[in-house]
C-alpha cells in the first residue's frame, strides 16, 4: 500500500517537473512562435540566480519564487529587444539566433561561475510514508506546478491582458487595428515566458548539481512536451506532461532509468505519428 502511494507521488512529481520545464517554452513557442533553443539556458540562469541569492544570505523561497523569475524575465526582455523582435515570423531564423544565444549564455556562465558544479540543498526535509522515505521537496514541486497551471489558465481566460494576448496571437493585424501594439504584447509575452523558464530553473536547482551546460538536459524534454501538447497552451501542457510523466516514471520503476527515457521518446514519436497536430490538435479543441 505504502509503495503505491510512493509511486503515485513519484508519478505526480514526474508530471509536475515536465510542466515546470515546459511552461515557459509553451508560452514562447506556443503563443509567439519563437523556437527558443536558449530555453534551457534561461533555466540555467534561473538556477544560478537562485544559488547566488541564497549564498548572499537571502531566503531560499524568495530567491526561487521572486528573484530568479525577475532576473531571467529581465534577461528575456533584453534578448527580445535586441534579437528576437527582429525575427518574428521567421521560425528558422529564431532557431539559429537562439542557438547562438544559448552558446553565448553557456560561455558567460562559465566565465562568471567557472565550469564546476555548484548547488544548494533542498529546503524541505524528507519524510516517511509508512516504511518509505520520500523527498519532501517533491510535494513543493507538485504544488508549484499545479498553481502555475491555474495561474496561466486564469490569466489567459480571466483577465483583459490574457484576452488581448490571445487575440494578438490569432490576428496581430486586427489587434493593431483595435489599438493594441503587437510589438508591446509580444515583448510582454516573451518576458512572461522567460520568467517562467527562470522559475523552473530555480525550483529544480536544489535537486541537481548545476553546471553552465545544465540547460541542455531540459531542452529536448521541453520541446517534446510542448509540441506533443499541440495548440492549446494549458490543456496541451497538462495532457502531454501527464502522458509522458506517467510513461517515464512507470518504465523507470518497472525496468531502469535508461528504459524510462527511451519509453518517453518512443511515446513521443508514436504520439506525433498518430496525432501530428499534438494532443490538443485533436482533443480538447478550442480550449486554452
Amino acid at each position, binding site marked *: 500500500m505504502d509503495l503505491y502511494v510512493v509511486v503515485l507521488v513519484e508519478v505526480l512529481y514526474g508530471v509536475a517537473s515536465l510542466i515546470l520545464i515546459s511552461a515557459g517554452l509553451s508560452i514562447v513557442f506556443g503563443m509567439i512562435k519563437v523556437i527558443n533553443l536558449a530555453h534551457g539556458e534561461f533555466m540555467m540562469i534561473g538556477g544560478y540566480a537562485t544559488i547566488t541569492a541564497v549564498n548572499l544570505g537571502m531566503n531560499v523561497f524568495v530567491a526561487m519564487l521572486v528573484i530568479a523569475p525577475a532576473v531571467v524575465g529581465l534577461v528575456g526582455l533584453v534578448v527580445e529587444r535586441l534579437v528576437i523582435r527582429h525575427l518574428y515570423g521567421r521560425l528558422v531564423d529564431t532557431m539559429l539566433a537562439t542557438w547562438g544565444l544559448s552558446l553565448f549564455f553557456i560561455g558567460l556562465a562559465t566565465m562568471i561561475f567557472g565550469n564546476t558544479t555548484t548547488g544548494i540543498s533542498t529546503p524541505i526535509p524528507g519524510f*516517511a510514508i509508512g516504511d518509505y522515505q520520500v523527498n519532501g521537496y517533491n510535494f513543493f514541486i507538485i504544488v508549484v506546478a499545479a498553481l502555475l497551471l491555474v495561474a496561466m489558465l486564469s490569466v489567459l481566460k480571466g483577465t483583459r491582458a490574457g484576452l488581448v494576448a490571445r487575440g494578438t496571437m490569432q490576428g496581430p493585424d486586427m489587434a493593431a487595428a483595435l489599438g493594441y501594439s503587437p510589438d508591446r504584447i509580444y515583448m510582454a509575452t516573451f518576458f512572461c515566458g522567460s520568467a517562467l523558464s527562470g522559475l523552473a530553473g530555480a525550483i529544480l536547482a536544489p535537486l541537481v*548539481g548545476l553546471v553552465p551546460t545544465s540547460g541542455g538536459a531540459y531542452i529536448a524534454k521541453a520541446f517534446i512536451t510542448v509540441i506533443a501538447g499541440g495548440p492549446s497552451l494549458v490543456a496541451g501542457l497538462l495532457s502531454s506532461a501527464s502522458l509522458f510523466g506517467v510513461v517515464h516514471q512507470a518504465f523507470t520503476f518497472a525496468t531502469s532509468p535508461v528504459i524510462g527515457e527511451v519509453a518517453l521518446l518512443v511515446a513521443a514519436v508514436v504520439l506525433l505519428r498518430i496525432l501530428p497536430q499534438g494532443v490538443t490538435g485533436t482533443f480538447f479543441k478550442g480550449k486554452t
Partner: protein
Amino acid sequence: MSLNRRNILTGAAAAASVGMLPRVAMGADSVKLGSILDTSGIFDAYGTPMDMAMRLAVNEINAAGGLLGRQVEVVAYDTQSDMALYTQYGQRLTRQDQVDVVHGGILSASREAIRQTMRKTRTLYFYNVLYEGGVCDRNIFINGVTPAQQVEALVPYAMGKSGKAVYILAADYNYGQITARWIQKFVADNGGHAVGVDFFPLDVSDFGSTIAKIQTVGPDLVIAPLVGGAHLSFFRQWAAAGMKDRIPLASTTMGVGNEHKVLTPEEGNGIMVAYNYSQELDTPANNAFKERWSAAYGDSSLIHEIAVSNYQGVMTWAEAVRQAGSLDREAVIASLEAGLSIDGPAGTVTVDPKTHHAVLDVHIMEIEDQGMRVIETLPQRQPIDTQAVCDLQANPDDNTQYEIQI
C-alpha cells in the same frame, strides 16, 4: 616611419624570427616534457589542477638542478575537453615538438586517442588518472588506482559497517560498467550479494524513482560509482529524501574532482570512499606538498586525487631519467621496470614491472564536513585486476586494453 604593407611584413617577419630564437636555443639543451590536458571546457575541474600539479613538479625538478644537468621545458596543450584535439595535439607533441615524454590524458577516451600515436613514434607516455584498468602496453606507465585496488579495499570496510545486501548504482559507460562488475565480485567474495544494479547515462539527474526503488529492495548498503555533475544530484536527492541516515552509502568516484566540496556537510557526511590521496592525509609528505602548492598558487583547496597522481607521475619519470642517466626511451623503461619507487604526497608509489601500473597506498576514508577523513591506510596495494590479464615481461609486444572477465 610610414605604415605600408612592406614595412609591416618586414616587421612581422623580424618579430617572428625573434620569437623563434629562444625556443630553438632552449630546445638544444633542455629536456622537453609534453603535457596534454583539458584545462578548459567541461573537464577543466579535473584538468586545471592536474596542469598546476605538473608545473609544480617541473619547477621543483628545475630548482633542484634539472635532469642530467639540463632544465626541463614544458610543452603544454589545452585540449578543451574535445577528444578530437587529443589526436591533433598528440601528433604535434610527438612529430613537431619531438618531446622526450608525454604526461596527460584524463578520460579513458582521451588516453585511447593518443596512446597509439605515442607507441608508434616511440614517445614514452604517462597516464596519471584513476581509471577502469586493463591497459597493457609497454610504452605507457599508469599510476592512478584501478577498480581492484580501490574496490577491494572499500567493499569489505563498507560491508562491515552495514551488511551483506548491496545495491549498485553506476555510470553507464565503460568505467561504470567495469567497476560495477568488480564491486559485484568483491561483494560476493566477502559473503554478500548484489541485490540490484542500475546504470545511468551521464545526463540523468533525476533519481527520485530510483531512490524509491532502492527502498522497495531494502539493501544494507548502496555503492555508487556515478560520474559527473548530473550524477551529483543523486547524493543531494538521497539526502533530501532522508535516506542518508537509513542506508549507508559508498562511492568510488565521489571526490575525485573535489565534488565533496560542493555538497553540504549534511548531504556528504558519512559517504565512504577509498583513494590514493586525501587533502586531509596528515603525513609530513602531504603537509609539505600542500605548503609548496600554497606557496606557488596561494591556496591548496584545488588539490585532488588525480592532480596528485599527475605530480607523482612526473616525479616517477624524473627519477627514472636520473637513474638511467639518459633520456633514451629503452633506458628509462629499463630503470622504471627495475621496480622504481618514489615517495609522493600520497605515500610510496612503486612501478609494477609486469603491468606498468602502480603499486600504491589506498586510504579508506569517510567524507566529513567537506573533507575526507582517513579511517584506515592499506599500504602498497597491487593492481591485481590488470595483473590478472597483463604480463609485459613475458609478452612485451602486447598492445591491448583487456576487458576484465569475472
